[in-house]
């Protein structure tokens, strides 16, 4: 096989769908050669880049029973299919586990956060994944189900190595639970430029009584092949003392780590370690001075849903029947299960949706799926069957422009125009569902589409102008 560079489209796979946990577990056992598709935000790029091949994809996103956030007894319980965006914004999670919400805010962009799930991220076990350090610091556990089995695994025992977990092939993570023990914490994060993943994550939690630390957890992620957890090394110190001794503490923490740091083009190993040390010093100092920087981000009650109305997947030979409502009109077609929603839309004339990359990063293909921004290159068309897709032509009324369109042209927020559609669609979701005020902090955590012409300055102005238009229309 030759080196493939003509990428961006997956190899063939079969697509199956589970609408209940039991069905998912049954399918997993029945089809040995299967992979679970939760949000798909890691699996879809790997398939598109042909780094991995699967015979069967079992789509579990429609399992509603795995979508909840509740606080009961001694735990904050988060269903495995709760999206990153909900982890970021849900009020209860923000109240009970702020650093977990912060970790979620730092995940990729709003499109990825809309589809990606907390259970999926943990099961994928990327060494640079955002959740692990936060959950380690929060002493979290996961509930794992198989057919007729249920077990609880500490997050610290779940991760077995890069992309390897304690899960058996026929098991699923169903819940993440966090003890309600009142951990205070800091989450520090470094990502380089337009890189997709962080190079360093530091999370620190502690409990204190009368100014003396009674329990502490320091977690370091993205630096070593495994997230590192150091328990209780601050116990007995005064909170104030931690800042004064920060350098000493940090040196002792890192000298206790016996692992070779990760290396990639973004960050060589020695640099990663150095930054991790600096960020840990910063964290400890902020704890001792009571100046912990917390993200000021909006919260909301409840969580979003994924309405699955279609039931079973209908195969006709090797093809599947797909029915998608685009801008108010149902479009039906027989397609290969691997056909991406992007290609489905373009095939049916919605060529305003653009392909800009192979890895699901640039955002040019962004559309609204049930009102929320997704990258259509990260969604098999069959997954969107029965759902509602909106492109810009669905937002404007006839020849009357939508306020976002007006704002973009008034600010000259485009040059070649290739990224414009994706930017407008993600702006719609951002201003509608994330932050209507378009605050700088949420903006830079949410919209990470790529434009090569404008230098972004006018796009930022357009987003702020659209925010004003939409808020004045709503008052």
């Amino acid at each position, binding site marked *: 096989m030759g080196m493939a560079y003509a990428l961006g489209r997956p190899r063939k796979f079969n697509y199956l769908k589970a609408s209940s946990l039991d069905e998912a577990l049954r399918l997993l056992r029945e089809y040995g050669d299967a992979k679970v598709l939760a949000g798909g935000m890691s699996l879809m790029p790997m398939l598109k880049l042909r780094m991995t091949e699967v015979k069967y994809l079992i789509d579990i996103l429609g399992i509603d029973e795995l979508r909840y956030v509740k606080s009961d007894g001694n735990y904050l319980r988060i269903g495995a299919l709760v999206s990153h965006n909900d982890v970021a914004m849900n009020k209860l999670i923000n109240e009970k586990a702020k650093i977990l919400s912060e970790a979620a805010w730092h995940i990729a962009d709003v499109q990825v956060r809309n589809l990606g799930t907390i259970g999926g991220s943990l099961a994928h076990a990327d060494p640079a994944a955002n959740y692990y350090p936060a959950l380690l610091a929060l002493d979290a556990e996961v509930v794992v189900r198989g057919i007729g089995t249920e077990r609880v695994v500490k997050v610290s025992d779940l991760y077995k190595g890069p992309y390897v977990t304690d899960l058996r092939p026929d098991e699923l993570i169903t819940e993440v639970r966090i003890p309600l023990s009142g951990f205070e914490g800091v989450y520090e994060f470094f990502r380089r430029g337009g890189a997709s993943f962080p190079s360093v994550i530091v999370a620190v939690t502690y409990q204190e009584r009368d100014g003396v630390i009674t329990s502490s957890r320091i977690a370091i992620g993205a630096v070593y092949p495994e997230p590192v957890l150091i328990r209780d090394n601050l116990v007995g110190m005064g909170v104030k003392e931690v800042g004064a001794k920060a350098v000493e503490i940090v040196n002792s923490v890192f000298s206790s780590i016996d692992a070779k740091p990760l290396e990639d083009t973004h960050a060589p190993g020695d640099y990663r370690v150095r930054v991790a040390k600096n960020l840990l010093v910063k964290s400890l100092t902020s704890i001792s001075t009571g100046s912990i920087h917390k993200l000021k981000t909006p919260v909301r009650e409840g969580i979003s849903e994924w309405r699955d109305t279609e039931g079973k997947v209908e195969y006709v030979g090797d093809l599947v029947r797909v029915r998608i409502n685009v801008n108010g009109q149902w479009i039906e077609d027989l397609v290969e299960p691997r056909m991406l929603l992007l290609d489905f839309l373009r095939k049916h004339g919605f060529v305003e949706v653009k392909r800009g990359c192979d890895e699901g990063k*640039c955002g040019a293909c962004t559309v609204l799926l049930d009102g929320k921004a997704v990258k259509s290159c990260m969604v098999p068309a069959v997954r969107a069957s029965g759902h509602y897709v909106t492109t810009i032509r669905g937002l404007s009324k006839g020849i009357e422009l939508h306020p976002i369109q007006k704002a973009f042209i008034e600010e000259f927020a485009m040059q070649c125009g290739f990224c414009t559609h994706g930017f407008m669609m993600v702006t719609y979701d951002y201003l509608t569902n994330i932050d209507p005020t378009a605050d700088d902090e949420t903006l830079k955590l949410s919209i990470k589409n*790529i434009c090569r012409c404008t*230098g*972004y300055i006018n796009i930022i102005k357009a987003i702020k102008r659209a925010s004003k238009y939409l808020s004045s229309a709503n008052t």
Partner: protein
Amino acid sequence: MSKLPHYREGLRAVTGSGEYIDDIPTPPGTLYMAIYRSPYAHARILKVDLTGVFEHGGIAYGPNELSKVIPNPFPLAVDAPIKYYPFARDKARFVGEPIAIVLADDPYKAVDLLDYVQVDLEPLKPVLTIDDALKGDVIIHEELKSNIAMHRHMKFGPVDSVFSESPIVIKREFYYQKHNAMPLETYGVLAHYVNGVLNIWANAQGPLLITYFVSRALGIPTGNLRLFSPRDIGGSFGSKYSLYPYITLAAAASILSGRPVKWVESRTEHLVGSNSGGARKGVVEIAATRDGVIRGLRFKFYEDVGAYPRPPDPGVLFRVHGNMNGAYDVRAIEVEDYVVVTNKLPTGLNRAYGGPPFYFMLEVAVNELARELGIDPLELRLKNLIREFPKKIGDEYFYETVTGGLYPRQDYERVVKAIEPEYRRWLEERRKNPYIGVGIAVIVEPSGTNLGYTDLAIEPSKRKYPHSGAGSYVTISVDMSGYVKVFVNGTNEGLGHETTLAEVVAAELGVDPSIVIVENRVDTTRTWALSDGSYSSRFAPIVVSAAILAARQLKEKLTRLAMAMLGTEKVGYENGQFYDVNNPSRRIDIRRIAASVNWDPGSLPEGVDASLSVTVFYQPPTVKAAEGDRINSSATYAIQAHLAVIELDPNTYDIRVKKYVISHDSGRILKREFVDGQLMGGLMHGLALTLYEELMYDEQGNPITTSLDIYESPTLAEAVGMEVEFIHFETPAKFLISGAHGVGEGAMMGVPAAIVNALASIIGKAITELPLRPYKIMKALEG
């Protein structure tokens, strides 16, 4: 909400109604092409077996079949025995070089079929660095007998005496990385060979030499080759000039298969196999007096053009030939250029072609001179600025550089001093916060390329013909209803050309822009010139000049027709209407003239031309062929000053731009929003290359940068919170009809030096290897 601004391309963008290459309807029976590319940087091709592709329902062609329809190598700009074909014939010379192509009726299937291409390769040791190329232990092109595709050594003015007599000589070494300005839309081609005529739709940058190259390689005369571009192109930045090898491949596929063939490149292919700017090693020496007067400059450049010296390279070295003294009055310049080949992606046009590496090295070196002499870097620059423009050509005064450039008169000092208040303010801030860095750069931005500069790659005695291509055609006509139609054989990559042309022509004719229809795309069935296209910021100085000239000539024709129709020798003109000066109530508007001429040309008096169409070719008056090694390499030049204010994060060693100021004089501003847009975009491209983007290779020559993640391309998030300020001066360039210099590239030329100089103000030394990755800064801080 207000009335929408006049912005035609913008309206298409917000309504999703643009027409890009992948949106063009395909003819029935179109096949999709996928390319099998070399997995080795350097390897002999032993055997190509394509039977598996046919067994799985596809079509495939390897080097044997392709050689039959691509008999000739592309012409080269260097005098070297190198053969460059769009596919590897006997040897693969970079990872990603096409070896075979497969065709299928579906793009998914075409990619699947690549699995069945079997190629036996014998890997050879690759040459990957400039130093290894110079060493020459392994030779990439055997006929060349070395890896040096060009060596030129030129001296202008009394260099030797200036350097031996100057009390201060500083010397700095630099490395500028390989990178690609990378448009968001990748390459795309639709080729259809039918009845001996090759029809090509491609998102190319213009007809320019692309048609010539494809015609030569295929042996198809230009008369039988028709190149079209779609109405919209998703960015190019020079990159899509290098589409011609792929146009040739798709054309070959259509000729061989007898079917229309479509190919749209993947992003990974774009990073691995399309185009890039070259890596460059440079040594800059400055001879100066103790009080900081620059007397002489010496440059030694080693340009790595990848596996083949692909034209227009090594033009990257000569694009700045006329402006190698930058903004300074320096009369002694020596330059020694080496062009080396390595087993990497071949290079080509890349936004600001030649400017970023050149000004990065010059302007960091100038800053270093200031630091060494203990002179404020702004003061030192002001001291050396050009102030006299003694050479008169026509109505304009010029400063003639020692290398042959002609800088039109501008007030350089005023433009540079405009950044001073902000510069001083931030130097104050720096005293309070040591992590704030302040850096400046001053450049002269060339625009409107003289294609003749590529001749400098060849010794004067060996050049066969003179070259000075720079001009453009513009056709303006009026239809029967009075609509004014403008046609330019150029391309729309997002520069707002349609909008600008409509406004310029409407203003010239005194009509509303809404009746001016602009078509700006490649169509070689219509009039075109070798120099037509979108590159080197030539639109404002050249294309707009041609359009104004054409509008004036059209107006003259209309005037003669109005005279005939009104039966008078004296007509006036206002708001689209001609009137009899002796009796102003007798009027006729353009629409009426157009209707009369169309319906009743027979009634015109004898000798009155009934044509309502004008085609003009405009060649800028300053562009001439080289004389020896002196050439005015660009139609014009404009001054620009940059101020970068950065903040260094002491925990992560990462840089954030707090404020960026550009002061410039690009002549007449045709549309402020578009000028600002070019500055902003160029600024971000500059930051991308200075801080993030590099096409990297491992020790085997495998490309490492295969994704946007690895490329670290800045997203919107990286721009949030960055403050940008532009200070515009508007001295009309009298020698150009448009009065406007180009403005698309200067920002990118100045950014690398301004940022490096800003960082140097924090860490006490200049990091002279790009990009400025945080770990390099960490190491520099640790000493």
